[in-house]
């Protein structure tokens, strides 16, 4: 802690005091025509600013110190991966941890209150949507800002089919997925040739169009007042009590998460999955290597949207009430945050991202009004110090019998 450091932090503190002065200190009420002065807040800002700038620079230095220039590969040294990441790829750790985790997850609903089960189910729904969006954004690199629309398609599919035709949850599940895909194709054909942020804005527009239509077309969607009393899922002919139903949906979601993980994991190292990643890495090179990028993009889009549709059906069944307010742009942004914060392309990362981002605000209820503020800070801090997300994608390695030293090369 040198003098220079202290000076820098003092400067930062002074700057923050100055910066926050009007908004923090003066509270004007133009209705009552009153002015309040909160000088004490200036002190908080000063102390906070000082500490913050100290920690900030300390961690920034640590981050930069840790990032050495790309190690020369000739040394055959594995790339420096974080300890945690190495740990989870270590079978000796991963297997017992998986067993313990599996057991914990199975007994979870019997150990904790219904509230815990409920928010865990919500988090699991986000795990599924996060993994779905991960295919589009994380793996194929298509920035998609209208994902909630496909989620809405699923939810309204179940709600409306049930209302008009009494379609059961189990039938609605595949229909929701199918309709999600159909909408993805409708959107995908015209827009997928757009690049980067243009694609982002068109998907955003599409998401808003779906929401606004749901909001305005009362005859079809019952407008902003939504659809109530959507039945919870039944298991064959058992009728559950509310509490049993919560547990049932929890296990249902758990099964869906497993299915999603299974599918995305298989896709990750498949011919199509590799094409998606190549698309993300370099569109031009990808096309030059003989990959039909239009079809590849569309397949990623459809795949991701199918999961959104399916998750939407469960969402409607869990909440029993839906209206367009649940499918705003903000919802799409939250799911995008899950993917990026968790680690683009990394399945485990996205799962962790969903759990953190959805459970964090719930557990932050203790800080009630500060929770969204903290949420914003967490997003910024996470991105600054771990821009790649919690876990980064790890590619599969292949072993060859003949050993790596023998290379019958041409040169």
């Amino acid at each position, binding site marked *: 802690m040198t003098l220079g450091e202290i000076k820098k932090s003092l400067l930062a503190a002074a700057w923050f005091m100055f910066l926050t002065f009007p908004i923090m200190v003066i509270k004007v009420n133009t209705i009552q025509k009153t002015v309040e002065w909160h000088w004490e807040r200036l002190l908080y800002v000063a102390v906070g600013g000082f500490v913050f700038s100290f920690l900030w620079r300390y961690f920034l230095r640590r981050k930069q110190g840790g990032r050495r220039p790309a190690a020369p590969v000739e040394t055959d040294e594995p790339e420096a991966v974080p300890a945690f990441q190495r740990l989870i790829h270590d079978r000796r750790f991963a297997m017992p941890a998986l067993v313990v985790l599996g057991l914990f997850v199975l007994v979870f609903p019997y150990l904790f209150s219904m509230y815990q089960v409920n928010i865990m189910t919500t988090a699991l729904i986000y795990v599924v949507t996060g993994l779905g969006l991960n295919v589009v954004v994380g793996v194929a690199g298509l920035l998609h800002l209208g994902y909630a629309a496909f989620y809405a398609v699923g939810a309204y599919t179940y709600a409306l089919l049930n209302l008009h035709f009494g379609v059961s949850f189990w039938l609605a599940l595949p229909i929701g997925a199918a309709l999600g895909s159909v909408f993805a194709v409708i959107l995908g054909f015209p827009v997928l040739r757009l690049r980067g942020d243009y694609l982002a804005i068109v998907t955003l527009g599409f998401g808003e169009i779906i929401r606004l239509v749901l909001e305005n077309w009362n005859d079809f969607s019952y407008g*902003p007042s939504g659809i109530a009393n959507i039945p919870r899922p039944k298991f064959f002919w058992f009728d559950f009590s509310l509490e049993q139903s919560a547990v049932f949906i929890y296990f249902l979601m758990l099964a869906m998460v497993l299915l999603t993980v299974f599918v995305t994991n298989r896709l990750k190292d498949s011919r199509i999955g590799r094409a998606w990643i190549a698309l993300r890495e370099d569109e031009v090179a990808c096309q030059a290597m003989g990959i039909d990028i239009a079809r590849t993009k569309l397949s990623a889009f459809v795949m991701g949207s199918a999961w959104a549709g399916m998750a939407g059906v469960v969402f409607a069944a869990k909440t029993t009430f839906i209206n367009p307010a649940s499918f705003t742009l903000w919802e799409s942004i939250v799911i995008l945050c899950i993917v990026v914060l968790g680690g683009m392309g990394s399945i485990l990362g996205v799962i962790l991202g969903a759990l953190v981002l959805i459970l964090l605000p719930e557990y932050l209820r203790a800080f009630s009004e500060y929770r969204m503020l903290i949420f914003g800070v967490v997003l910024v801090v996470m991105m600054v110090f771990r821009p790649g997300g919690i876990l980064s994608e790890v590619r599969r390695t292949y072993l060859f019998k003949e050993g790596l030293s023998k290379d019958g090369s041409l040169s």
Partner: protein
Amino acid sequence: MKRYASKRCLAAILVCVAVFAFSGVGLAQDTIKLGVAGAHSGDLASYGIPSIRAAELVTKDINAKGGILGKKIELLLGDDACKPELATNVATKLVSDGVNVVLGHICSGATKAALNIYASASIPVMSPSATNTELTLSGDYPNFFRTIAYDDLQARLQVSFARDVLKVKRVACLHDKGDYGKGQSTLAKQFFEEAGIEVVLFEGVTPGAVDYSAIVQKIKRENVDLVVWGAYHPEASKIVTLMRKKKMDTPFMGADGIKDETFIKVAGEFAEGVFATGPRDNTKNPLFIAAKKAHQDAFGEDPGVFFPEAYSATLALLNAIEKAGSTDFDAVTKALRSEYVDTPVGSISFDQNGDAIGIGFSVYQVKNGVFTTIQ
């Protein structure tokens, strides 16, 4: 490496368990738990926060007098940001935490989503602000009560006033595409048409839009006798201001969403002459005056919207528990339906549907910068 790994593993599991055990463990009942649920954050926070304050003031009062049934009142807050899916989480949280009664939720949609969770746990719920007609009249929610009259009544009052007093022939019904606004406007349109008045415009404007002059020009072209606004005051003040600036003197009428001091303060001189329906004037009610004063003392400002309703709902709920002598669902709801209680919105009880008896709507007009009862 191996030892290290297993240690890390153990630590990770411990952390997990600790996190999940963090909350949700039931406590012994030595207090009466009043849940307060609604939008406490997000863009609709200003409708939810007054209800927290109302509940705080009432419980502070009652606890200072020793509580009810010998128990103190404890508040449990739940923020649903007016989102149905969060409302169900809030509801299960409150149920898990063992609430006895709930004040809330604020928005009709969130209330609908949450209600059957409370119902299955036999918890009475009373909203100060959810006006959706179905909530009481559909009969689907036997545990639901409210201290605000429902949309139907208000729309009928608007229509009869427009027909009998203003004698209008052509009206424009506008709303904000929201749950409350569109519902209210749809009812108004229906009753206008039943009364033989032509609704020439029925449209939603986008809340938060930066300019409404296009819709104002459209109103002007349609040459209507009355503009009926169904939603909240921020957009209403923008529209009425633009109308007056464009020298249109078409009367403007809103519902309880604009019957708020803020509307007059924001629209200023342009608010003059605007009609609004809203809960009956209680400003002379001593309890209302006292509640307002308590709010000013505690928070240094005038209470926000739905504060009197929330204050009254809290009083009604706690009174019913006291009269019932327990927090048993049947006893409490019976007390709610049979006992009258004096509140800032008048002496009220509840009917079979859960709607308050003894409250009503009046028509106001802005005169010299204040809402004045005219009918």
